[in-house]
């Protein structure tokens, strides 16, 4: 299995100046959003990053993309992308300029939650495509429009989308346009951060299926970040669960859904309501920790029904407990 993207010992978070001190002295507070994260993503797979709000998954995906806008800081670790031409790109050591020129849209694309973070409200859709073609393929406007028409037909978007401005399109249509732009240059890596959270169920199905089909056609790596476990269940081949900045379980999606190992994963899976199943379900007590001062040891231990004394003292390393299954919990391997 070829490795497409390799993240090693990533550390990062947000450096905030405290808002609540009236004195001119600025206290800086560090929010530990991504802590010691290591991942190996394979070519031709759909990989899911699951977790609740505040767990650090959006931060992680920004770090994988190299999008480090202050107050987001990278404190340690590296991210390496292996392109299909055989190059190795060290995303964490490139400057913003280099990333914009060589990597972004070309080798790696980022699909954000809100399409308006990508689309320029003053430009028509065809001009968005034209700009992309101009920057990376060096072709002129007329030619770009022709290419855009061909491409749009290919991805199944209606032709009249090209002459529209973003605000004239519905949310679902806009998101499909953004995905089309993201896939234009056939990147090795597509990172989608909650790509369908703002959409209704039907548009969600269309958008996600578009992503899936593109991945199957290009045979690249698609990473989906979502708090909705159902999306992971239908879209991903492998996935990881994040809690309070740490990866606590990684494995094949089917295995995780059928036999979740980490106590947190177990709660996530078992508390999912399902049509046709009226069985009583329970949630967790407490609430996710404040990442400005996360708990010592295992960050989940204050809410864990199986917590042992060790759990409060030392954070467990993530380890392979079964074939292709990794868990960060002191109960495993047994």
């Amino acid at each position, binding site marked *: 299995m070829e490795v497409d993207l390799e993240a090693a010992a990533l550390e990062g978070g947000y450096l905030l100046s405290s808002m609540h001190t009236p004195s001119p002295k600025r206290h800086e507070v560090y929010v530990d959003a991504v802590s010691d994260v290591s991942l190996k993503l394979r070519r031709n797979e759909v990989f899911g990053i699951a977790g*609740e*709000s505040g767990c650090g998954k959006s931060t992680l995906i920004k770090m994988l993309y190299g999008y480090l806008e202050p107050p987001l800081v990278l404190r340690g670790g590296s991210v390496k992308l292996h392109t299909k031409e055989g190059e190795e790109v060290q995303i964490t050591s490139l400057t913003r300029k280099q990333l914009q020129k060589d990597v972004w849209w070309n080798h790696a694309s980022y699909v954000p939650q809100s399409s308006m973070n990508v689309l320029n409200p003053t430009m028509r859709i065809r001009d968005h495509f034209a700009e992309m073609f101009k920057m990376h393929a060096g072709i002129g406007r007329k030619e770009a429009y022709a290419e855009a028409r061909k491409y749009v037909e290919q991805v199944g978007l209606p032709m009249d989308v090209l002459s529209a401005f973003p605000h004239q399109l*519905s949310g*679902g249509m806009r998101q499909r346009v953004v995905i089309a732009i993201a896939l234009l240059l056939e990147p090795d890596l597509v990172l989608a951060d909650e790509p369908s959270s703002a959409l*209704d*169920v*039907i*548009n*969600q*199905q*269309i958008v*996600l*299926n578009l992503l*899936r089909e593109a991945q199957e056609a290009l045979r690249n790596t698609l990473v989906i970040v979502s*708090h*909705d*476990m*159902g*999306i992971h*269940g*239908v*879209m991903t081949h492998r996935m990881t669960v994040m809690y309070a900045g740490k990866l606590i379980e990684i494995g094949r*999606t*089917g295995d995780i*859904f059928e036999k979740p190992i980490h106590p*947190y994963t177990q*709660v*996530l899976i078992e*508390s*999912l*309501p*399902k*049509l*046709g199943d*009226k069985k*009583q*379900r*329970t*949630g*967790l*007590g407490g*609430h*996710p920790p404040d990442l400005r001062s996360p708990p010592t040891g295992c960050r989940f231990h204050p809410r864990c029904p199986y917590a042992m004394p060790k759990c409060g003292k030392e954070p467990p390393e993530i380890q392979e407990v079964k074939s292709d299954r990794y868990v960060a919990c002191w109960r495993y391997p047994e």
Partner: protein
Amino acid sequence: MSGEFLLEVKDVSKIFGYGFLGRVKFPAVDHVSFSMEDEPKILTIAGESGCGKTTLSRIILGMLEPSGGVVLYKGRNVHAPKSGDKAWFSKQVQAIFQDPYDTFNPLKKTETYLYETARNLLRLKDYKEASKRIDEPLNFIGLSLDDVKNKYPNEFSGGELQRISIARALMPEPKLMVADEPVSMVDASLRMNILNMFKDLKEKGGISFVYITHDLATAYYISDEIAVMYRGVIVEMGPAEDVLIGKHHPYTKGLVEALPEYSKREEWLRKRAKPPGMEVKEFLTPYCKYSDICPNRMEKCVTERPPIYNVDKVKVACWLYDGYPVETLQE
């Protein structure tokens, strides 16, 4: 089972005017009727955003005037209260909203609403008495007055704050709770706690719920009955099991089959329903509102609005069921 109805929504419509001089009329709620009997039940009004469910909930609460039709709570008109009715309504009908951080004024301490409820609805002017009375529902949701005192909303987590808003709503011992997307902004691992709480309140507290959501899975989990709304119209309504498993109306079918679920992976990847189009036009059609994107569209669908048919245990507004007995509006 008493013959009296807890809630009756009769032919309610709400038309918003916009554009120059308010000329363009837009029916957010279009002749909606349903009723809830006077025994504890959870009714879900399900639909995607823009279908009119929130507008309908505001009308039921008496906070928004309907353009047509009437809402009766235990026989009394919610929008034409007689003297003394208003205070009585406030005690009988309460609400929980979607965003816990907006439910409370960010500039005020959270407890002020608890004390206001005690003072205005329960006539407890004495601080000590009110404090004692406030502790009860707070304990029910897992907190105490000491946990809550002197704190601003941003000092609580989303889940906690939502539970506090439930406690406030429970204070006057209401018989009907309108819950507008109460768990969509709460973390997945905490949702079940709140939903189980609703089930508890229904079974042991005798409180009925109108649960408004777009999430059919949670709707299935707690509801007795479900009404599916599309563009201001109820397209299907009946017991939760029959509506969501039976999928009589094409829109219900589309919705249910679009739900991503691990066990239905294969089918989900193959389905491709058409998405709803640009809003306004669809709201204004005088024929079936779903016909534009309906896979089962027939001649009749684009000429006339379908009546409500009684099919098995379910009411469906769809021409596919022509031939079944028609539901007539009771006076």
